C-alpha cells in the first residue's frame, strides 16, 4: 500500500517549496508512484508594481529574485521597451548580454555545487553540512572518501568562483545582486579599458574553473550515480523563449534560441499564442480556463474540489513543458543524450561553458566609442511583452502602461512551468511527472526525491512561501484584483 511522505521544508532552493510523494513497491522496487508539487505561493509583486513610474519596473522586478535579478530586470526592460517603442544601441545589447550571462554562470555553479551536490555526498561533520539525510550516499555507499573530499573541496572553491562570477556581472552592472545600470534604452555604464581588463581576467579564471573542475565534477558524479541518467525524465516536452539575441531581438546568432520540442520530435518555432494556463487543479474559477497570458484573468475560487495549488498550470499546445538549461541546450541542438536528473546537471554545466565562450565574443564586439544608451521618452501608454530566459528557464513579463504609470503587470516564472500542478487533462506538471519512478531506499529520508527536485533548480523566491487557503480567505480578494498567478 502506498505511503505519502511530505518534505517541508525542501531546503537548498531559492524561496520555499513543499513536496508530497506517494511511495509504493512496484516490481520489487520501492519507488515514487505519485507526486504533488503543490506550491501555494504568494508575494503580490505585480501589485507592488501598480501605479509606479514605467522606468521603475526593472529595479522593482529585480527584487522578485535575488538569484536571477538580471533576468527579471531584463524581462521588464524588454516589455517596457516594447511598450515605449525603444530600441537600445548594439553596445547596450552586448553589455546586457555580458551582465546577464555572468548571472547565469554564477547561478549554475551555485545550483550544482551548493544546492544539488549535498544530495549525493556526506559533508564535513559540522554545520551547515551536517546533520543531513545520509541514505544512498556517503563514503560507505556510493562516493568513496577520496571522491567525497574532492567534491567538498570543489564545493568550497565553487563558492569563491560564483562570487567572482557575481563580480563579473557587477563590472558593467554596477553591482550584484540588483545591478543599478539597467535602464530602458540600454545600459548606463561606460566601457572603459580598466573594466575590459578586469572582465577578461575574471572571465578567464571562471572558464578555467568550468573546464578543469565543474565539467569534470559533473562527469565524476554521473559515473558514480549513473542510474540517475534513467531517473527523473518526466514528460519530455521542452520549451525555450531564447535569450542573448542581438538588436531587434534577432536570435540567429544567439547562444540560446527560442523553440518548442515535443517529446521525441524535432524542435519547431516558438509560437507564444500556443501558451495557455489551466486552472483545473488550481484555486481559480474554471471560467478562466485555458486563457493566454495576454488575456489572463485571475479569479480565485476557494474552496474548490481537487485543487491543490495557487500556481496555475501553463501549457504549450496543451502540453506540460520543462524549461531550463536542458530544455535550452536540446532546443539549440547542443545537447542530445537524453532527459534525466544527470542530463540536467550536464546540460547546465555545458551551458555555462557555452555562455562564457559567447561572452568572449561579445566583449570583443564592444565598441568603446559608440553609445551604450539611446535617449528615449517614457511611454504615456502602451503594452509590452518581455520574453527572455532566466538561469532556471523561460521567463515572461507582460506590462500595460496608462497615464505614464504601470497599470497592469503579469509575470510567469520558469518555476511556474516546472512546478505547475496537474492540468485540465489530468496531466501532472513537469516536476511531478519527473518524480514518478524514482526509487526511495529509506522512507524516513527520501533523498532520491531531492535529487530530482534539485535537478530542476527550483526558485520560488518570486512568490515567497506557502500560503494555505484555509487560513487565507482574504487572498481571494487579492487574486480577484489580478495580483498574482
Amino acid at each position: 500500500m502506498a505511503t505519502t511522505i511530505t518534505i517541508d521544508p525542501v531546503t537548498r532552493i531559492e524561496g520555499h517549496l513543499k513536496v508530497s510523494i506517494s511511495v509504493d513497491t512496484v516490481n520489487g522496487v520501492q519507488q515514487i508512484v505519485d507526486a504533488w508539487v503543490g506550491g501555494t505561493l504568494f508575494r503580490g509583486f505585480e501589485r507592488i508594481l501598480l501605479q509606479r513610474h514605467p522606468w521603475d519596473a526593472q529595479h522593482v522586478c529585480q527584487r522578485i529574485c535575488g538569484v536571477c535579478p538580471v533576468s527579471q530586470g531584463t524581462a521588464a526592460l524588454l516589455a517596457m521597451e516594447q511598450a515605449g517603442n525603444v530600441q537600445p544601441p548594439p553596445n547596450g545589447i552586448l553589455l546586457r548580454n555580458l551582465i546577464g550571462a555572468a548571472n547565469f554562470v554564477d547561478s549554475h555553479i551555485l545550483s550544482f555545487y551548493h544546492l544539488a551536490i549535498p544530495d549525493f555526498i556526506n559533508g564535513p561533520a559540522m554545520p551547515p553540512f551536517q546533520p543531513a539525510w545520509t541514505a544512498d550516499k556517503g563514503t560507505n555507499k556510493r562516493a568513496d572518501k577520496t571522491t567525497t573530499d574532492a567534491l567538498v573541496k570543489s564545493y568550497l572553491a565553487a563558492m569563491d568562483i560564483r562570487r567572482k562570477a557575481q563580480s563579473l556581472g557587477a563590472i558593467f552592472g554596477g553591482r550584484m545582486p540588483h545591478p543599478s545600470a539597467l535602464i530602458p534604452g540600454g545600459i548606463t555604464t561606460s566601457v572603459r579599458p580598466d573594466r575590459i581588463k578586469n572582465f577578461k581576467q575574471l572571465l578567464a579564471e571562471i572558464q578555467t574553473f568550468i573546464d578543469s573542475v565543474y565539467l569534470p565534477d559533473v562527469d565524476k558524479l554521473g559515473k558514480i550515480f549513473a542510474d540517475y541518467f534513467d531517473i527523473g525524465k518526466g514528460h519530455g516536452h521542452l520549451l525555450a523563449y531564447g535569450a542573448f539575441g542581438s538588436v531587434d531581438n534577432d536570435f540567429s546568432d544567439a547562444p540560446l534560441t527560442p523553440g518548442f520540442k515535443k517529446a521525441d520530435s524535432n524542435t519547431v518555432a516558438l509560437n507564444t499564442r500556443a501558451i495557455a494556463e489551466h486552472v483545473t487543479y488550481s484555486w481559480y474559477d474554471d471560467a478562466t480556463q485555458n486563457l493566454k497570458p495576454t488575456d489572463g484573468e485571475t479569479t480565485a475560487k476557494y474552496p474548490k474540489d481537487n485543487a491543490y495549488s495557487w500556481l496555475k498550470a501553463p501549457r504549450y499546445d496543451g502540453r506540460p513543458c520543462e524549461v531550463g538549461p536542458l530544455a535550452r541546450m536540446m532546443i539549440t541542438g547542443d545537447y542530445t543524450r537524453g532527459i534525466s536528473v544527470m542530463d540536467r546537471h550536464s546540460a547546465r554545466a555545458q551551458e555555462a561553458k557555452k555562455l562564457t565562450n559567447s561572452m568572449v565574443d561579445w566583449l570583443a564586439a564592444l565598441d568603446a566609442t559608440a553609445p551604450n544608451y539611446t535617449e528615449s521618452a517614457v511611454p504615456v501608454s502602451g503594452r509590452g511583452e518581455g520574453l527572455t530566459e532566466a538561469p532556471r528557464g523561460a521567463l515572461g513579463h507582460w506590462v500595460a502602461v496608462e497615464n505614464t504609470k504601470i497599470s497592469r503587470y503579469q509575470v510567469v516564472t520558469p518555476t511556474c512551468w516546472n512546478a505547475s500542478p496537474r492540468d485540465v487533462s489530468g496531466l501532472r506538471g513537469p516536476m511531478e511527472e519527473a518524480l514518478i519512478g524514482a526509487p526511495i531506499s529509506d522512507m524516513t529520508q527520501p533523498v532520491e526525491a531531492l535529487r530530482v527536485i534539485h535537478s530542476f533548480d527550483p526558485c520560488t523566491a518570486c512568490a515567497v512561501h506557502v500560503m494555505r487557503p484555509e487560513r487565507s480567505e482574504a487572498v481571494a480578494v487579492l487574486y480577484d484584483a489580478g495580483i498574482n498567478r
Partner: protein
Amino acid sequence: MTQGLTRRSFLTYCTASAAVLGLGPFDLFKIRTALANPAAPKVVWIQGAGCSGCSISFLNLVSAAAPINAAAVLTDTIDLIFHPTLMWASGEQASGIVTKTINEDNYVLIVEGGAPTAFDGGACLPWSVNGVEVTFQQAVVSAAARATKVICVGTCACFGGMSAAGENPGGVKPISTAIGEPTINISGCPPHPDAIVWAIAQLLAGNPIDLDGDGRPKAIYGKTVHNECPRNRTKTGKDWANAVGVDNLCLELLGCRGPDTSAPCPTWQWNDKANWCVDANGNCIGCTEKTFPGPYKFHRTIS
C-alpha cells in the same frame, strides 16, 4: 580539509582586517577566547518575505586584507546551525534543528526578509514541525525570544522594504515590529557583505554597537552617499550630469538619492570593488533607507 575546518583563519582574517573592522587587539583576544569556547554563539539564519538576494550578497564576501571568503566564514567562523539555502539537512530534520537550537540560549539570530502578517501570518509558512506548518510570524517571535542578539540583514527585515512596498499585499512588517523589540539593522537591498560580517564580528567580540535612530550601526551608516561621493560637485567643481550615461558628473538631477541615503558605498564599493551604482552611472536608489522603495521615482528625466 583539516585546515578548512578550524576557526583559525577567521582569526587571521580579523587580525589582518582589524583596522577595517574597527577591532583592537583586545577585541581579537576576546574573539579568540570566544572561538576557543565550545559554547561560542551559534548562528541561526531564517528567511521571511524577501528574494534571497541578501544571502547571495553574503556569499559574495571577500576581503582585500586577507584571502577570505564566504566558504571560510562557513568553515572557520561560525556554526551556521540553520540557513534554508545553505544547510544540507532537509524536511523536518531541518526544522528540528531550528526548534532544538532556539530552545537553547546561546545563538545569534539573523533574519533575512520581512514578516508577512496577512492572513493571520499564513502568507509565509517556512517549515513544518510534526506535520504542522509554522507561520513565519510564530517562527521569528520564538527564535528571537532567546537569541543573544537579533541582526536584521537587508532592508525588508529592517524596514519592510520592497516586500512591504505599494499596497503591501502581504502585510509585511519589519522584524522589530514583529518581535516587539529593537534589532541591529544591516540595511541595504542587498546589504553589503562586509557589513553583515562586521556585525557578526562585533557580536563575537562582545562589543556594543552604536546605532542610529533607525537601528543601523553608525560606524557603517554614518555618512551619506552624496557626501562621500567622488562626483560631489564640491569636490569636482563640475556641473551636474544632464543625460544618462555620462561619467564623473553628479547624478542628482537624474534622480540619484545619494543626498538622502546613508551608506558606505562610495568608499567600500561592491563585489571586490568591481564597481558601484554611481560609478556605473546608475542612480543611487536609496536602498539602505527606511523610505525604500518609495513611492518616489528611481529616475528623473530632464528633457
